[in-house]
Each structure stands twice: as structure tokens, then as C-alpha cells.
């Protein structure tokens, strides 16, 4: 198998050289956040350390962790490490409650992101001869623009169709002869089935980069078989950059983390780093970001790392599939959803939080989220239209606070299950 490598110097750098580069870049980012971000300066001062104490990666455990809550506490721009005049792009993802999680990029950050997404495109064998249909959402979500810039960087022809509108997706796949597809894996399956339903058995598609939600090897096999493509797994999160933090090569045996830009750790329940091969909380330090650098950001994604050499020739460590979460975050059609957001949305409508339950299922290939809400006496009406208006109000509140469409089902009080006095909030029936 031929492996196309966008930046062989960096991607195949011997590991000792890579470590030396990380040491240097870690010292730099620690100095930058200490000087420019009061949150980090205060934390480091409380821990009794200065940038001088950090010699390199060997001292990583002396640095403080960063949690999603810290981003919320400094909403919106409090963790930016440069003046607003240096920020050229702002993205946001859903926060744990109400307010979104905000990230800012300098021109240099956008350039580095495009470079890493270009590497990712090459990993999936996508280059200038390709027509790339980007069916990730464009907007505050990083998926669309992330894939877009990477595909442009390698010289591909980009179709920025964004997510949804399956009929139009199928039309362009056929009429424009798209050779590559970027979207969530569940949407890829959806498109594959829609193509079959239309009796289309041959397209020019040959590869796809899929991510933003958990998927399985079984789903990969199905997508590859139905679309006749190589389906490549990509990983990222807006806090760290967006898509392209790590990606599989054509070996499809784990995602290479771009270690010249991100320093990964796998943290165990005791808060200490675990050796390669052991499963824990994936944590990243951004080595080269200037807009909003983060030290030891806890993703709460459970996975393992390996530094075994890869057949493709890249030396960067690989992470396995994300096996779960260490918090209660759900991923619904690529959108991160926390039960606390749903709770907040209900609070906005009703003034109090009623007993509720979230039921997640995968019907066909798409995730569905139903929020079952016990009806409060204050909202009881004798007319159907009032009750349906209440349902619609809750649906809209969830859509605006959690950025996801949920169906709402009103339930009789006392009917939702409670365990040990505390309700069981989430029933995830997806078989992943």
C-alpha cells in the first residue's frame, strides 16, 4: 500500500527529535499562558511554580489541568492569550449549561489547523485530484470549516455543501462526481442507504473522513461496502482545535495524534499519567496554539495510546477508538450534549426543573433524542393546543440551549423511573 504523506519531515520525525521539539514548544506555551492568561498565572502561582520550573515534557505533571468548567468560568474570551485584535476566528461548541464553550484562533492558528487537516486529507489519500464534498455543518461548529481549509490546502476542489439536505447531497455526489466525503459516520451511512434507495450503485467516491461522534468497526465495514470507499476515522474537539487533532492513516489501526502540535496524556482515576496501552482520560496540551492555548485539557474521552511503529512510516503515537466518557456527555448526531443543558432548558421553560429522562436511540442510522418530562400541575391545560404549545416550547428551549433537536414527551407524574431517590437521567439504547 502506498502512503501519501503531506509533511514527511514532521510526520515521520524520529521520536527523540520529536520529543526535543515538544520540550521546546512546551516551554514556549507555558511561558505564553503564564504571561498572558491570568487564570493560568494564578493557578501556577498557587502551585508554587513558574515557567522556569518546566524543563520539558518530563515536567508535564507539575502543570495544572484544565477542565471544560474553566472555559465556562472565563466565558467568553477570558482564556484568550492574545489581544482581540490578533483573533481572526471564533468558534463555539455547546457548553455544559446555557452558555457555549468559546475558542479563538489567530491567523497563525488557522494556518496550522489547515496544515494539520491537510495532513489528515493525505492520510485518507485525498489530494488535488479529488472533489471533496464537505457535509459537516459549517458555522460555529468546527467540522465544516476545518475540513474545508484542509481540503483546500491540499488543492482539492471543495464543495462546501454543509450538513443536511440529503436529496441535494445525492445530486452533487452524482452530478459533480465527488470523490471524497467528509461528514459524521452516521450521516455517511444515511447517504449510502439513500443512494441505494435511488438505485444508484456506482459513484466516483473513493474515500471518506468521518468523525465527530463515536462509531464502530462494524459501521466502518458497512460504510466501506455500501459506498465502495476507504472510511477513515478522524478525531478532534473545538477546545483543542477542531477536527484533525488525530486521524487514521490508510492502515486504519488507530488515529495518529499530531504530536508536534498536541501533547497527549492518558490520565488515570488517581490523576496521574498512565503508560501506553492503558485506558484513561485523554488529555491534551496545545503546543502551538496562540489564540487560546490550553494546558492539560481533560477531554473526558476514554481511550488508549500506542507508540508502536506504524506501517505508514509516521512516527506520531496513535490513539484507539474512544471507548466512552468519564462524564455524562452524550454525542447526538455529532453534537455534544450534556444532561445539564437539557436541565437548564427545562428550567427556562418551567421555572423549576421537573422530573425528566433522556432516551437516546439510533433509528436507521441517525440518533434520536427524546426528552420525557413529567407534567407539572401548573402546566396542565384542558386543551390539546396548550399542551402541544408546551411541548413545542420545550423543544425550542432544548434546541437553543443544547443545540440539538429533541422530541419531547410529556409524562404523568411519578411514572419516570427513579433509582435510590435520584432519577436515572439518561437511557442510551444505541448499540455502539
Amino acid at each position, binding site marked *: 500500500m502506498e502512503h501519501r504523506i503531506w509533511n514527511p519531515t514532521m510526520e515521520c520525525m524520529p521520536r527523540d527529535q520529536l520529543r526535543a521539539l515538544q520540550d521546546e514548544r512546551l516551554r514556549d506555551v507555558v511561558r505564553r499562558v503564564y504571561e498572558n492568561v491570568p487564570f493560568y498565572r494564578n493557578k501556577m502561582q498557587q502551585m508554587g511554580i513558574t515557567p522556569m520550573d518546566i524543563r520539558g515534557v518530563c515536567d508535564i505533571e507539575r502543570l495544572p489541568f484544565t477542565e471544560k468548567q474553566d472555559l465556562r468560568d472565563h466565558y467568553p474570551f477570558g482564556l484568550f492569550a492574545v489581544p482581540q485584535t490578533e483573533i481572526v476566528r471564533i468558534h463555539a461548541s455547546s457548553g455544559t449549561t446555557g452558555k457555549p464553550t468559546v475558542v479563538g484562533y489567530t491567523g497563525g492558528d488557522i494556518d496550522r489547523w489547515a496544515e494539520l487537516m491537510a495532513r489528515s486529507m493525505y492520510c485518507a489519500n485525498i489530494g488535488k485530484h479529488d472533489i471533496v464534498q464537505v457535509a459537516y455543518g459549517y458555522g460555529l461548529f468546527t467540522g465544516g470549516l476545518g475540513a474545508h481549509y484542509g481540503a483546500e490546502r491540499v488543492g482539492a476542489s471543495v464543495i462546501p455543501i454543509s450538513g443536511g439536505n440529503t436529496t441535494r447531497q445525492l445530486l452533487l455526489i452524482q452530478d459533480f462526481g465527488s470523490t471524497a466525503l467528509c461528514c459524521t459516520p452516521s450521516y455517511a451511512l444515511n447517504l449510502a442507504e439513500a443512494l441505494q434507495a435511488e438505485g444508484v450503485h456506482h459513484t466516483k467516491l473513493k474515500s471518506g473522513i468521518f468523525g465527530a461522534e463515536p462509531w464502530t468497526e462494524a459501521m466502518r465495514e458497512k460504510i466501506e461496502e455500501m459506498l465502495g470507499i476507504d472510511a477513515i476515522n478522524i478525531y478532534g474537539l473545538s477546545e483543542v482545535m477542531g477536527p484533525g487533532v488525530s486521524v487514521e492513516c490508510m492502515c486504519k489501526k488507530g488515529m495518529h495524534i499530531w504530536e508536534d502540535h498536541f501533547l497527549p496524556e492518558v490520565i488515570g482515576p488517581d490523576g496521574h499519567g498512565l503508560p501506553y496501552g492503558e485506558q484513561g482520560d485523554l488529555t491534551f496540551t496545545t503546543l502551538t496554539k496562540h489564540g487560546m492555548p490550553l494546558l492539560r485539557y481533560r477531554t473526558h474521552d476514554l481511550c488508549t495510546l500506542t507508540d508502536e511503529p506504524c506501517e505508514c512510516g509516521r512516527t506520531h503515537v496513535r490513539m484507539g477508538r474512544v471507548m466512552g466518557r468519564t462524564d455524562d456527555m452524550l454525542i447526538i448526531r455529532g453534537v455534544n450534549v450534556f444532561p445539564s443543558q437539557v436541565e437548564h432548558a427545562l428550567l427556562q421553560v418551567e421555572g423549576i426543573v421537573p422530573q425528566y429522562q433522556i432516551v437516546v436511540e439510533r433509528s436507521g442510522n441517525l440518533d434520536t433524542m427524546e426528552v420525557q418530562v413529567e407534567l407539572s400541575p401548573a402546566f*396542565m391545560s384542558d386543551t390539546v393546543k396548550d*399542551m402541544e404549545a408546551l411541548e413545542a416550547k420545550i423543544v425550542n428551549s432544548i434546541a437553543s440551549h443544547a443545540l440539538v433537536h429533541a422530541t419531547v414527551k410529556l409524562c404523568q407524574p411519578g411514572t419516570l423511573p427513579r433509582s435510590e431517590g435520584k432519577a436515572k437521567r439518561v437511557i442510551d439504547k444505541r448499540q455502539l
Partner: protein
Amino acid sequence: MYVKQISVFIENTPGRLADFTKVLADHGIDLVSLSIADTTHFGILRGIVADPDRACRILAEQGYTAKLTDVLAVYVPDKPGGLAAILSKLAEKNVALEYLYSFVRNAGDHALIIMRVDKLEDAVSVLRDAGVRMLTQEDIQTL
């Protein structure tokens, strides 16, 4: 001139209505009139009972969400055009009808119809001026 209707939220799943009627039976509550508005997920059961306050209290104790609403219980001549004549009077005065349903029992040559309207007082004066008889809550208790 009003009667109190009790409305109860019932989930649209098998057995829920049976459970509900059992509660009524256990507490000797008699529905003299009944209708159910249903959607995919839930139904709103509406009924007239002799002692709505007691019924509401008992249902709340049993975990049901119930609500009392003032409605009209109207004597309608039990012949073609009987209802039409009354409804057109209401329409003339721009009184909108949310829903209506009939009593389980009738009263001789009249049907008893429950009407939920948007402008209760207007509706009462229109019907009274037209000589239409309506039941009061006291009447219900002696039915």
C-alpha cells in the same frame, strides 16, 4: 351558570385509562359526562362529576395531574337543527368554541352538551337571552 369540568392528563399507553377508571371506582366517583382528546403521546380526559373539588383532590393524591375548568352545560333541543341554532348565536357574538361533547345521559327531549368557550360570560348572556337553559353545578349534583 357554569359547571366545573375536571381535565386529567393520561399518557397514551396501554392500561393507563384502566388504571384511572379504577381510581374513580375505588373512590365512588361517577362520571356523568366524558370525553377524551387524544394525541400520539397523551390524552386529555375531560369529565363532569358531582363533586369536582373532591375528585381533583383524590386524583392529585393518586399522582394524576388534574385541573378544573369552567364550562357550560347546555340544554339543546334533541332534533335536527337544535345545536345549529345555538352555535350560530354564539358565532354571531364572536364566541369561539374550543370543544364540545355530550352528556352520557339525556334529559327527555333535550340533549345535554358541554361547551368550552373562550368568552364564558359573553356566551352565558347570549344563551340566556336566547332562552337556552343551562345547568349549574348544583344541578349536576342532583342529576
